[in-house]
């Protein structure tokens, strides 16, 4: 599963990249990207999807993790209202890393590897701090935004 940060969207628009793969974005990244859409006069391509609209997305667990990450990490500012995209990506990674439950509440045995595409050094650092084990096991990988295809 590919996860895209706000700066990845800017990069895709700026370089006119036609995506072959599907990329997911969090609710906060979607909200933050509205100006990007406006500036480039483009709408998000169909290959960039809001994860909150997918049936497997557990909003309840996501919110719980969102709160946890919000209190754990600095770098977000209530004065400037910045940095919440990072928090939302960390929350999403956490529920994906923990495993997606099926409708009976059973954790799926199958987990996709997770690839994060970002140009944000501070987000990269937070992911490295939070998901050491999964990064080491190769279950989560961080790519630069320029690696999108």
């Amino acid at each position: 599963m590919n996860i895209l940060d706000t700066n990845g969207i800017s990069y895709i628009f700026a370089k006119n990249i036609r995506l072959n793969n599907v990329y997911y974005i969090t609710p906060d990244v979607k909200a933050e990207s509205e100006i990007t859409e406006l500036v480039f006069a483009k709408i998000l391509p169909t290959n960039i999807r809001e994860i909150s609209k997918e049936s497997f997305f557990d909003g309840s667990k996501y919110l719980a993790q969102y709160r946890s990450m919000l209190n754990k990490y600095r770098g977000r500012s209530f004065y400037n209202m910045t940095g919440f995209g990072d928090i939302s990506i960390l929350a999403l990674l956490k529920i994906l890393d923990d495993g997606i439950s099926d409708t009976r509440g059973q954790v799926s045995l199958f987990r996709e590897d997770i690839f994060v595409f970002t140009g944000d050094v501070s987000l990269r650092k937070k992911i490295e701090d939070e998901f050491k084990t999964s990064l080491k096991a190769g279950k989560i990988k961080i790519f630069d935004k320029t690696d999108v295809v």
Partner: protein
Amino acid sequence: MWVMLNNHKSTELDNSAVAQILSLYPEEKLIERPVFKNAFANDSINFAELQSESEKILIPWQLFFLDAINLKHELDHIEKQRADKVSAKLVAKRTGVGNVTSKRIIDRLIRLQNYISQNGSLPKNSFCGSLINKTEKEAVTHTTVFFGIDINKFRSYKNKSSALAYLIERVESKCINISQGVLTNKMLPTWQVVDNKIYKSTSGFVIKDDSIPFIFLPSEINPDEVDGRQIYTLIYLLALIGLNEYNYFLEKDFRATDLSSTGAQRKIYGITSEFLLPSHETEELRGKTITPQIRDNLASAYKITPTAVVVTLRMRKIIPTKEEYEALLPPPYKPVTNIDRHVNAPRVETSVRKFCGKYSFEYINAGIRTNSLSSIQAQYLLFGSVNKKGFKKYRIGLKI
């Protein structure tokens, strides 16, 4: 209390933190809002309701997700910003007289000022402190020259509204951001959410900065702020910036403070009066009986209120006795308009331009155009909250 999503308990909020956030602006009584009353009673709140309510009260929903330690950190930061930027007297609750300056407005303007400071390399504004050690007359000359104010042009306007607009335009041309209180287009919580009358006591004030000081004029949030009064407020606040005297602000009932003022405060009033009603122009009235007609003629000619005329003449002892002074004070102004009545809202961009001021408006628009601002950040700067409808109209209106 639990945050509920799809009938599931998602995450538990710290009730005392929620209560603390809702008391951030105590005069707004946000804690009494039905949604929050029910949330405390049921020990739960639906996430969609929390989000929607947060947009109405202009407080980000994420703030409610903070634990006690992180919330304290945020609130301390807000307090520090206030302490650095505005007069301690201004933010102190002044009990008894009902003079409570809205901290919400202060916080909004500090946010705008910080945005400008962080995104521009503005030089120091040479007007700041430039009136120190100057006599009142020298201060007036310096101010008119610095801002390029043609005093005859200012006085020649037929109405005070145009004269005020001229002054604002001149002052704004020299890196001073003038913000005006507006109640339209959700620039402040709407009247269904917060009783607008609570903002009425907000005085004119200054937010300190060496490069881009902010002036706040209460304007339409205070129906007592007629144009002549706003002109007086503007010059008074300009004098504060010129004197680096940020520990003062204009009291609601300035007639009393004006007469009893001493030291720095007297100098501030002195410069303001000298600017608007020069002493050499009033000297010829010495020894004459001041009639209400003379008072009103002076008010009209010099673009100030009749009250300001009377107070100034009393300070200069041209009105010699207390009895004459009191007899000449006009009856308290009764606004023609009712603050509760429905008015046709101006265009969103007009309300934003007035509330945010020239420089904030221009910097934010540049941030939108260059994609250096996120959508959320832009909405918080412009409206103090997520306001998708307003933001869409704003962009369409300005074609950005």
